[in-house]
């Protein structure tokens, strides 16, 4: 048969010497047949024939000279007269001419044995009479080598066989039963084997296909012995053997008892017997290529090809009861032209009962090894250990390995860093590290901007953490130099950046104010102070103006009411006629749209800076987006990165993602990581600010996050992946991944089961359930979130009242009370402590100072800003505002105090028509704010009031005001769709709370070109900075376990918590535990408490919450409550929740 590499499979047949067929035909020929299994007929096609001068004793088809296409090779025939002829089978098949490639008559007698070297296919061994063995090199056919000296006495060589494992070992055997093993490197025989007990004719000898040291000799005796194994079954002499190269457990033998047997040579067991005619079969061979096929040549001139496999080939019909299918018969190869009929085997009656042909499947169908991937980056592998020929019949034990495949190590590392930052809330550190490691300037810029975002964020956090501890007034008693905390943000930027600019402005203001403070009672200052003390704002303003102190003038004018402010501004502008007056008037008129729309894009930075500083909070985000949109449309990568900065400023996560994804490759894990890091920072900033989840609405963002989660899952970070999946999405892909992640998590039951992501199809029922996505509970969840988000618009305002954190006292302004915490979604609990009753009392411990005669507008608390979101129609009769946000600046605006506020939700349709309406908030009467206090602290407090200057200069307002229905401006900005996806609504993002924009007033001083007063932010900034610095310390290593335990507890609860109220409690808890961590960082906790905490932590770790609560009670009762009041209560809450949820 053709070699293994050869395809299609050909069968070469040579006319055999010694035997005469029935026709006594004496011609000799070499014939090649093709076995085409796709041909349904059983006949083989004769592909070529070559008459030969001599009959052949042996024939072998070698790989030598085989083309890359798997055809060719060489046929080598050993003839009866000692001639060795090399044929080219291709030529035989093509024409027959020139088929003889080489010929040699070195051998003196009939060449009975031929074998080619399996390793070096140019090497051929031949054996003939007189112990002649030659090694032929087909490259140099003329001069054969000998393996060594001829063995004595000279005998015929009946078999030569190359070792299948070691290439230089050759064995030869002669009919007398002697076998010799030659080492061709030494050119001498190394082993001589003979069976002295029987002088038997050796007809076959084979090397074990897999083991180099085993040689099987077939003795021409029924019961020959061999050292290793005796195979006894044939009743008469064996003619031929063949050992399957594909499965060493299959050995064929044919014998004079007309039988062909297949053995398992390892066990000596006859596996099955092939059906044969009543003829000796003088040659059996396994097909080197198709391991299931074997050929048998019999003396009746018939070659039969069998398959040991079953199957439904036509030959299957030949399948016999003894489980052998004979695949093919063949034409008479001896040129008689007589086509012999196929084997006539009685057909089994029941054709359908197909029995496996081999009881034990042959090796080539047994899959020895395998690897398959599973969800979560797991790889299941099993293997078949390479064993020496299975001596043991029992199954080999195998192992199944479950491995975790992680390929994206950098990705995972960064993902873990991000996750750690998100969980611990240490965004600043994270951003700063990113800035330091940024690979490009653009990258650095983006992180700097994000740092500013997170910075504002931590201010917000600071609200809660430092509540009530220090008043702003205390702060201003310090000098800037003492307060070196300014260095933190300054150190972040190498180049002046706008937040730095801002900061410098703040710093300048600070200097100014402290200076003011220091000269409190001198000269003009004294006079001003006096005027202020008596509430004489106008007088104070005049004094300032005359003295050239424009800043103070404006400041005081702000406090003094709209009229006074307007006058002051007019006076100032009439005095100032210089180059910056245009900018100033732009600032004053708040007309930024033109600038944004028409500025040179190269000046985008300046435009953005101006926006940051001055733009009205209502418009800020939109303006930023407009600017970003212009930059993005430019199309270059640089511009797009700049656009990204704009979107970061506006807090527009969606646009950021879209812009980034458009110009940066996000398909690779690291590219995606780049994006997600930024998005998450921005998103978390906004979330913290609104104190609610920011639902992922943009399909692009959802897709990116899903993709990110997918990669995390593939790398085995299942729980992390879960946190990134967009919440409440009804996209099938996301829901499926969520479901899969949920079930795949090894720690089962860490949360409640998510809604089924797919319809379970009951396969035991006839009809699959109809598709019904988005079950009702899901809609409910959506609604909850909408309420939360809606309310969150209020949060920045209420939460951002500068006095609130510092003075958790009821305030005179009634600010917070105007919006009593609207239900559980109101984050008042963690921002401003208990809800404040609307009574007037003293902020900052000062007695209330009623200010008769002074319009109260100046004291409109910043909570009134949200009113800008409301349709102005809620204030019938009020003058039409230039800006919706300017509502609260209407002179005395009594209507504001009355009537229910229209819910925010109505202004911005959210969640579609089906979304439940937000509860209207009853608006208690706004208490007349006290005015006229001259205390510095109070002064600052007042300055939180935002006064759009449009009212001062209505004539330059861009918005025509007359005749527009009061709902006009607001309605025009209302867009359908979810609030956070519409740019107009983006103003409700964090940017609103940026001090400079929200609370900016314009102070114009001669020596400061532009000064932005940002008092509330300023105060908070100052307030926050020390804490911020503290936060940079590490928690001592021995206490890290507390943080990890409690954080993970909260996280587990969060995953398990079902109702929104619990979720909110937990969100709150996650933040409040920050106090604990701060204390740990400061190392200010007593031993007793620390021990208690560790004990609680251990209880939590072992999920023994009951015990944890007991320890908690002990700690609380035995400690100084003030030391632990900030965090112990929330710890109890968390443990109670955990206990209830059973996490």
């Amino acid at each position, binding site marked *: 048969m053709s070699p293994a590499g050869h*395809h299609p499979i050909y069968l070469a047949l040579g006319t055999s010497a010694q035997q005469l067929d029935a026709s006594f035909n004496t011609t000799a020929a070499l014939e090649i047949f093709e076995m085409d299994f*796709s041909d349904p007929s059983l006949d083989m096609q004769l592909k070529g024939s070559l008459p030969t001068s001599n009959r052949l004793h042996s024939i072998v088809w070698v790989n030598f000279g085989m083309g890359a296409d*798997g055809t060719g090779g060489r046929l080598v025939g050993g003839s009866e007269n000692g001639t060795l002829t090399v044929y080219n089978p291709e030529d035989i098949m093509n024409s027959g001419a020139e088929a003889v490639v080489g010929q040699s008559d070195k051998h003196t007698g009939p060449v009975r044995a031929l074998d080619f070297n399996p390793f070096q296919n140019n090497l051929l061994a031949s054996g003939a009479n007189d112990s002649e063995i030659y090694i032929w090199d087909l490259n140099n056919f003329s001069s054969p080598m000998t393996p060594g000296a001829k063995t004595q006495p000279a005998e015929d060589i009946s078999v030569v066989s190359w070792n299948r494992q070691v290439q230089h070992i050759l064995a030869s055997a002669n009919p007398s039963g002697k076998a010799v093993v030659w080492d061709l490197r030494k050119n001498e025989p190394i082993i001589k084997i003979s069976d002295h007990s029987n002088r038997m004719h050796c007809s076959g000898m084979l090397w074990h296909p897999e083991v180099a040291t085993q040689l099987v000799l077939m003795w021409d005796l029924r019961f020959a012995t061999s050292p290793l194994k005796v195979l006894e079954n044939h009743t008469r002499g064996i003619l031929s053997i063949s050992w399957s190269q594909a499965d060493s457990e299959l050995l064929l033998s044919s014998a004079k008892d007309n039988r062909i047997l297949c053995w398992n040579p390892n066990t000596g067991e006859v596996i099955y017997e092939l059906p044969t005619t009543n003829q000796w079969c003088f040659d059996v061979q396994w097909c080197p290529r*198709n391991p299931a096929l074997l050929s048998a040549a019999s003396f009746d001139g018939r070659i039969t090809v069998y398959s040991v*496999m079953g*199957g*439904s*080939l036509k030959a*299957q019909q030949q399948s016999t009861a003894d489980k052998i299918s004979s695949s093919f018969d063949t034409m008479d190869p001896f040129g008689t032209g007589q086509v012999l009929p196929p084997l006539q085997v009685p057909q089994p009656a029941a054709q359908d009962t*197909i029995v*496996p042909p081999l009881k034990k*499947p042959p090796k080539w*169908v*047994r*899959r*020895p*090894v*395998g*690897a*398959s*991937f*599973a*969800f*979560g*980056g797991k*790889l*299941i*592998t099993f293997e*078949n*250990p*390479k064993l020496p020929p299975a001596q043991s019949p029992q199954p080999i*034990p*195998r*192992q*199944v*390995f*479950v*491995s*975790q495949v*992680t*390929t994206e*190590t950098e990705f995972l590392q960064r993902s873990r860093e991000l996750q750690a930052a998100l969980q611990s809330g240490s965004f600043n550190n994270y951003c700063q590290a990113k800035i330091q490691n940024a690979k490009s300037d653009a990258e650095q810029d983006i992180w700097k901007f994000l740092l500013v975002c997170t910075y504002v964020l931590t201010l917000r956090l600071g609200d809660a953490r430092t509540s009530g501890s220090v008043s702003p007034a205390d702060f201003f008693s310090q000098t800037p130099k003492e307060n070196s905390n300014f260095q933190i943000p300054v150190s972040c930027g190498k180049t002046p950046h706008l937040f730095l600019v801002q900061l410098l402005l703040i710093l300048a203001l600070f200097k100014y104010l402290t200076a003011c403070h220091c000269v409190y009672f001198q000269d003009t200052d004294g006079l001003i102070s006096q005027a202020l003390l008596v509430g004489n704002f106008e007088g104070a303003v005049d004094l300032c103006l005359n003295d050239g102190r424009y800043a103070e003038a404006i400041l005081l004018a702000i406090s003094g009411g709209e009229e006074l402010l307007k006058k002051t501004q007019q006076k100032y502008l009439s005095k100032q006629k210089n180059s910056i007056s245009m900018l100033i008037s732009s600032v004053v008129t708040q007309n930024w749209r033109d600038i944004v729309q028409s500025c040179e894009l190269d000046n985008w930075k300046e435009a953005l800076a101006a926006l940051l500083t001055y733009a009205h909070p209502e418009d800020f985000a939109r303006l930023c987006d407009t600017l970003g949109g212009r930059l993005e449309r430019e199309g270059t990568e640089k511009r797009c990165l700049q656009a990204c900065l704009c979107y970061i400023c506006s807090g527009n996560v969606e646009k950021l993602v879209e812009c980034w994804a458009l110009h940066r490759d996000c398909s690779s894990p690291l590219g995606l990581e780049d994006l997600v890091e930024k998005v998450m920072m921005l998103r978390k900033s906004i979330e913290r600010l609104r104190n609610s989840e920011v639902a992922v609405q943009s399909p692009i963002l959802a897709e990116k996050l899903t*993709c990110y989660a*997918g*990669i995390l*899952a*593939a790398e*085995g970070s299942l729980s992390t992946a879960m946190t990134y999946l967009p919440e409440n999405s009804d996209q099938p892909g996301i829901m499926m991944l969520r479901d*899969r992640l949920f*079930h*795949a998590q*090894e720690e*089962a039951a860490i949360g409640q089961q998510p809604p089924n992501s*797919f319809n*379970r199809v*009951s*396969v*035991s029922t*006839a009809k*699959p359930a109809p598709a019904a996505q988005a079950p009702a509970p899901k809609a409910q969840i959506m609604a909850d979130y909408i309420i939360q988000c809606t309310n969150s618009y209020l949060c920045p305002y209420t939460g951002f009242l500068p006095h609130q954190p510092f003075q958790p006292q009821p305030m005179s302004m009634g600010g917070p009370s105007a919006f009593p915490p609207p239900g559980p979604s109101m984050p008042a609990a963690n921002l401003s402590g208990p809800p404040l009753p609307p009574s007037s009392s003293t902020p900052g411990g000062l007695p209330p100072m009623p200010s008769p005669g002074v319009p109260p507008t100046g004291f409109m608390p910043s909570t009134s800003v949200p009113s800008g979101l409301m349709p102005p129609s809620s204030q019938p009769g009020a003058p039409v505002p230039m800006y919706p946000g300017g509502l609260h600046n209407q002179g005395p605006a009594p209507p504001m105090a009355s009537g229910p506020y229209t819910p925010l939700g109505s202004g911005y349709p959210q969640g579609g028509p089906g979304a439940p309406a937000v509860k209207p908030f009853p608006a208690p009467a706004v208490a007349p704010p006290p005015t006229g206090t001259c205390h510095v602290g109070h002064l600052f407090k007042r300055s939180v009031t935002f006064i759009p200057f449009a009212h001062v200069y209505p004539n330059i307002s861009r918005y025509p005001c007359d005749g527009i229905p009061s709902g006009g401006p607001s309605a025009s900005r209302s867009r359908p769709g979810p609030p956070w996806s519409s740019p107009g609504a983006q103003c409700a993002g964090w940017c609103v709370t940026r001090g400079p924009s929200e609370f900016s007033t314009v102070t114009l001083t001669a020596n400061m070109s532009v000064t932005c007063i940002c008092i509330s932010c300023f105060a908070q900034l100052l307030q926050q900075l020390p804490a911020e610095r503290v936060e940079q310390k590490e928690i001592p290593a021995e206490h890290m376990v507390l943080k990890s335990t409690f954080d993970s507890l909260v996280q587990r609860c969060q995953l398990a918590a079902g109702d929104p109220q619990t979720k909110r409690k937990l969100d709150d808890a996650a933040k409040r535990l920050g106090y604990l961590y701060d204390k740990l960082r400061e190392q200010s906790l007593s031993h007793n408490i620390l021990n208690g905490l560790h004990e609680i932590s251990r209880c939590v770790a072992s999920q023994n919450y009951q015990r944890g609560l007991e320890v908690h009670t002990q700690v609380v009762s035995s400690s100084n409550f003030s030391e632990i009041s900030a965090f112990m209560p929330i710890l109890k809450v968390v443990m109670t929740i955990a206990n209830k949820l059973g996490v």
Partner: protein
Amino acid sequence: CLYFYSSPFYVIVKYLKISEQHDAQMDYYGTRLATCSSDRTVKIFDVRNGGQILVADLRGHEGPVWQVAWAHPMFGNILASCSYDRKVIIWKEENGAWDKMYEYTGHESSVCWGPYDFGLILACGSSDGAISLLTFTGDQQWDVKKISNAHTIGCNAVSWAPAVVPGSLIDQPSGQKPNYVKRFVSGGCDNLVKLWKEEDGQWKEDQKLEAHSDWVRDVGWAPSIGLPTSTIASCSQDGRVFIWTCDDPAGNTWTAKLLHKFNDVVWHVSWSITGNILAVSGGDNKVTLWKESMDGQWACISDVSKGQGAVSTITDTQQIEQ
């Protein structure tokens, strides 16, 4: 649970010791492991939380069991197995007990469930060269379609194409059932990789991919990763692994890229869930992981023989003795 992220790229987190193994497949969630072996059984292990709890021992085959395949969980817990006894058995878990759901005779070499979008559909390859498609039609009924002589001599492997609607890889207009074209790939002893497509309810040979010079041992259609490219991996007795790709939405032009020529038979290829890593297991008992780099070249990212090195890093592995 034990996750190590250091190199080498993967470590063994747990292992089972059972009898001669022919296939091992995790379920959809990666929490249960089904194994099949020469002892004619199919075993299901719960491998959550690092444990290995034998939850089911399915007996019914009368020969070595070659392959197992989990159906998508939306249909319940369903497992298909095929054996040398020429039977395909579909097992189903009802109330914690596993039972035979369906038995189909005549196929033994390979089973593969189609994407859930197509319903419950199973492709079975047989060493007699035929491929059968079993579709659950409800009410315990299975519709059988047979492709006779799909591969001469024998079909060794089948693998389904992900459910992708030709032409539109983006979201489908909701509401309507997308018009999926069902396709799968098969590999056989005729050295061919063939693609099959259902047209008007009939399965037709769509493509014939020729590159291997010996039996195709396994084929794997990569999961869709949202790109318009279809990717198939095939491995063969000749030691070669080819990656076939097709960018053409009609699916007509396939190009072959040789991943690697191994020195031994390559038995199995498996794509990761995200379709970016290919695990190749060969007769040399090596599992290699391959990943396509940015420039489209396939690179081996890991070449670790199990049992050499990695195992020893785990101390708390358990063994289940047969």
